[in-house]
């Protein structure tokens, strides 16, 4: 149709152009003709005009009859008046009244020509008017147009007819193709095929179209499959991500495994999921975790937690070497593990290794009831998952180990800090003790010698001196305890078998004012409960220490019960296993070390409980520190520290149960006397041995001690020389030796400026190896305990020296010397 219109238009345009050209050329021709004709007529009209012969002119014009297209002609004289006209019969008023402007021009339907009439080049004689009819031209043009229109119509008709017949051959297949394409694009149905209507080019086009559809269908299928795969991959990745996150939030293996298996069961739809740990040495897999949905099957197959599965040669052995093993169908497997699973109705099995630091430490087991149901994507997913799980599990293990290490580090750090604190305190205490011992040494010596030698003392004076002696003795012991509460072994020598009951009763009686009378004055009532085990408990210990400790405990209990309450004191007998890792490890020291290996031992518990305020964690932690107190100005902070020291010296454990508002129970756990080795006794003093008078050199930097010692020893008939320093002592000894009156025994202080007791004794031993040297020291007990007795010293005596001990030592050494 388009073609038809186009060709019609072209045809019409061509015709129009042709007609236009014809019209124009005809007009040009007409113009030319009228000019030629006009020239001839004008030339023939000159004389007629000049000599006023109108009839002649009429004759001339009549010649125009031969040219039918000239419809009018006229001649005007110089005045513009009509002179003659053609056709002669026409009315003069049919002609222009006056001649127009010279020249040719087109009037309606005609060509009009005015031209001057002259004879030769001379002046104008008149004007000729010609009218050339163009009606015929117009008729002609109209005819042309008609013919053109007719031709066009005919041509279009022919074209249409031809087109119709061609359309049958071309349009129909193309329309069919178009319909097929439309259907495909609208419905998205690529299975449609265009019917082939011939074997020409259009047939080939149809084939190509169908082929294209085939390829499109294939392509789309492929893309869909790809998209599905991608989707699946993405969801797996997402799942992996979720599992990894869930796993990452957990720190212990068991919950990591449970999370993983739960996801496997719920999101990957495995029918059986488990994680086993691998023991490389035993070639055994231990089931560590089984999924919630897999429990039924696992129970049936005896694959519950901690079930052991030997690594057989097939899949599992490959897996523990680090390979992911996929058994598409284990229905007919002859290996034990797959066939076990097959008995539970499982057919497809994947075993993925859990590997950390290139060591397989477990396997992830996933199985489905349908054979060949794991795609390669599933396997890949399981492989990646197992890697993540392995990593997380490994990290959990590392974390656990780190936590343990940190815990241990913290504990040892605490212990070290505690020890350091006690050590510093001990040093200080030791220094203080040394000075006190030095200070009270003369008092002790003088008092003892006065009581012994001054027979004329009144009874009262004797009593006073006795009291002083006891007090000094107590001071010395107290100092020694204060100094040594951190040194458990040092007190051993003083341990003796003690029945606890009378000691406790004595203490309760002595402290009655404190726990009964004082509170009553405030209106508070403290009730006492006692409960003593039968048969009565006996321990090895120092009675005074135990008494002091108990007193302290009772005071603490009473102080904790400002509003009154119940004070309980009881003894118990129990069997205890050695507990090194108990919370009290740092404080309890190695109370039961010796008995540890031999299982439970019998212990005696001394318990003091109150129903008072109790302690918070911080107070509980620090309560054993020396100088730590909750009592402000009233407290010294030494109470529990001394109890602790006592416990250590008695190889006892100190246990404290307390919580704010719940009261406090302090329990001292002693080894029972029957268990503890009876080490009491110590050195038997060489009492009563006769002491022969000797030449004795005393070396000390403290004049009071020198004086008191000299007095005392002189009282025993010894000849005593004193030197007030180390160097002076050595010089005096050398001088005496040179004079032939050597000293038979030397008593030297340990701590002296410049030359101390060690050097003095070394010098004396080098000068006279057989002269006994007695070292007198405020640190004496430390030296013995630490086995630091200097090599050249024969005996170490503590300050303040006891006359009895001194005499015993002199007697012994003097005898051997």
């Amino acid at each position, binding site marked *: 149709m388009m073609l038809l219109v186009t060709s019609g238009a072209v045809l019409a345009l061509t015709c129009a152009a042709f007609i236009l050209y014809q019209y124009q050329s005809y007009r040009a021709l007409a113009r030319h003709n009228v000019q030629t004709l006009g020239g001839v007529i004008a030339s*023939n009209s*000159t*004389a*007629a005009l*000049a*000599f*006023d*012969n109108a009839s*002649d002119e009429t004759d001339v014009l009549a010649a125009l009859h031969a040219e039918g297209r000239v419809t009018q002609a006229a001649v005007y004289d*110089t*005045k513009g008046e009509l002179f003659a006209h053609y056709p002669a019969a026409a009315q003069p008023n049919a002609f222009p009244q006056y001649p127009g402007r010279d020249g040719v021009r087109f009037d309606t339907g005609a060509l009009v020509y005015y031209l001057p009439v002259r*004879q*030769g*080049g*001379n*002046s*104008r*004689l*008149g004007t000729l008017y010609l009218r050339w009819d163009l009606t015929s031209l117009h008729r002609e043009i109209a005819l042309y147009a008609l013919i053109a229109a007719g031709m066009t119509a005919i041509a279009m008709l022919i074209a249409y007819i031809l087109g119709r017949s061609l359309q049958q051959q071309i349009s129909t297949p193309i329309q069919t193709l178009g319909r097929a394409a439309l259907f495909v694009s609208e419905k998205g149905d690529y299975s449609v095929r265009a019917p082939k209507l011939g074997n020409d080019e259009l047939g080939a086009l149809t084939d190509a179209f169908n082929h294209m559809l085939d390829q499109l269908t294939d392509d789309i299928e492929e893309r869909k499959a790809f998209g599905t795969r991608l989707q699946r991959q993405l969801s797996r990745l997402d799942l992996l991500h979720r599992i990894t996150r869930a796993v990452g939030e957990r720190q212990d293996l068991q919950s990591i495994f449970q999370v993983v298996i739960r996801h496997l069961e719920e999101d990957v739809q495995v029918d059986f999921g488990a994680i086993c740990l691998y023991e490389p040495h035993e070639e055994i897999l231990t089931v560590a975790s089984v999924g919630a949905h897999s429990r039924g099957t696992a129970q049936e197959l005896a694959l519950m937690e901690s079930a052991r599965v030997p690594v057989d040669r097939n899949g599992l052995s490959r897996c523990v070497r680090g390979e992911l093993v996929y058994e598409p169908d284990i229905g007919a497997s002859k290996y034990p593990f797959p066939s076990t699973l097959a008995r539970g109705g499982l057919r497809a099995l994947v075993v993925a290794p859990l590997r950390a630091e290139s060591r397989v430490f477990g396997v992830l087991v996933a199985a489905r009831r349908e054979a060949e149901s794991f795609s390669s994507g599933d396997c890949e997913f399981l492989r990646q998952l197992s890697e993540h799980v392995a990593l997380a599990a490994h990290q959990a293990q590392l974390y656990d180990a780190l936590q343990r290490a940190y815990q241990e580090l913290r504990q040892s750090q605490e212990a070290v800090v505690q020890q350091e604190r006690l050590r510093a305190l001990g040093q200080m205490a030791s220094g203080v003790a040394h000075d006190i011992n030095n200070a009270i040494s003369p008092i002790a010596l003088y008092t003892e010698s006065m009581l012994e030698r001054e027979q004329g003392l009144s009874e009262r004076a004797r009593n006073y001196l006795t009291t002083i002696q006891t007090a000094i003795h107590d001071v010395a012991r107290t100092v020694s305890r204060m100094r040594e509460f951190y040194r458990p072994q040092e007190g051993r020598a003083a341990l003796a078998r003690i029945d606890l009951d009378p000691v406790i009763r004595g203490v309760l009686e002595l402290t009655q004012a404190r726990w009964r009378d004082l509170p009553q004055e405030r209106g508070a009532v403290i009730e006492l409960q006692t409960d003593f085990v039968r048969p009565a408990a006996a321990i090895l210990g120092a009675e005074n220490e135990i008494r002091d400790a108990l007193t302290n405990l009772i005071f603490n209990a009473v102080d904790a019960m400002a509003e009154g309450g119940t004070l309980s004191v009881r003894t118990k007998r129990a069997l205890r296993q050695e507990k090194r890792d108990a919370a009290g490890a740092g404080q309890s020291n190695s109370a039961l070390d010796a008995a540890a290996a031999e299982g439970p031992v019998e212990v005696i518990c001394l318990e003091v409980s109150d129903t008072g305020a109790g302690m918070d964690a911080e107070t509980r932690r620090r309560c054993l520190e020396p100088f730590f107190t909750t009592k402000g100005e009233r407290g010294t902070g030494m109470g529990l520290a001394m109890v602790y020291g006592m416990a250590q010296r008695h190889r006892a454990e100190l246990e404290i149960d307390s919580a704010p508002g719940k009261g406090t129970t302090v329990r001292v756990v002693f080894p029972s006397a029957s268990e503890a080795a009876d080490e009491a006794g110590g050195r038997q003093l060489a009492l009563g041995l006769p002491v022969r008078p000797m030449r004795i050199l005393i070396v000390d930097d403290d004049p009071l001690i020198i004086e008191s010692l000299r007095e005392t020893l002189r009282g025993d008939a010894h000849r005593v020389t004193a030197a007030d320093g180390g160097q002076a002592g050595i010089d005096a000894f050398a001088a005496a030796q040179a004079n032939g009156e050597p000293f038979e025994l030397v008593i030297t202080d340990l701590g002296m400026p410049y030359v101390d007791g060690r050097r003095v004794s070394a010098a004396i031993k080098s000068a006279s190896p057989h002269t006994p040297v007695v070292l007198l020291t405020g640190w004496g007990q430390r030296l013995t305990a630490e086995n630091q007795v200097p090599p050249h010293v024969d005996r170490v005596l503590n300050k303040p020296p006891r006359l009895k001990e001194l005499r015993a030592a002199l007697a012994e050494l003097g005898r051997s010397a």
Partner: protein
Amino acid sequence: MALLRTRIRAAAAAILIAAGVLGGRYAVAAPTAPQVEAVFLFYFSQFVDWPPTAFADGRAPIVIGVLGDDPFGGALDQAVAGEQVNGRPVVVRRYKSIADATGCQILYISSSEAPQLAQIMSALKGRDVLTVSDLDHFVQSGGMVRFILVDQHVRLLINPQAAQAAGLKLSSKLLRAAAGSGAG
């Protein structure tokens, strides 16, 4: 031509004035025969070819002579004033006697010369001059062009043989325009 028109216009103006004097009536008077003849005399110069010997040189004027009494008044002078024919000026000369009439190309013989016509004609014999007159039997007497009045129109009576004998070539158009030419 402009000349004729001017002239006629001047005449018309005179007549208009006369008419106005005569009673205010608007009337157009046709030109008189002498006026027409004067113009015709001038036009002959365009339709007649003279032999080269007729002129002294290429630029010599065409001379229209009037022998005897001038019947045209000033009409002839007006008719030729400023005109040129074939590159030559046109002048009017008046003669009393034929003897004076030399060097003219067109000679109008006035009716006043009727008595000496024969003498005049013989004097002109063999001369290349176009002879024109109103006189009866002028053509028979050997004249070339005679003005005659037919139905109030001035018409020409031409004797081509006489012209041919004088060596003049008359335009065929002149001959056709002349009524009864050759009839004498």
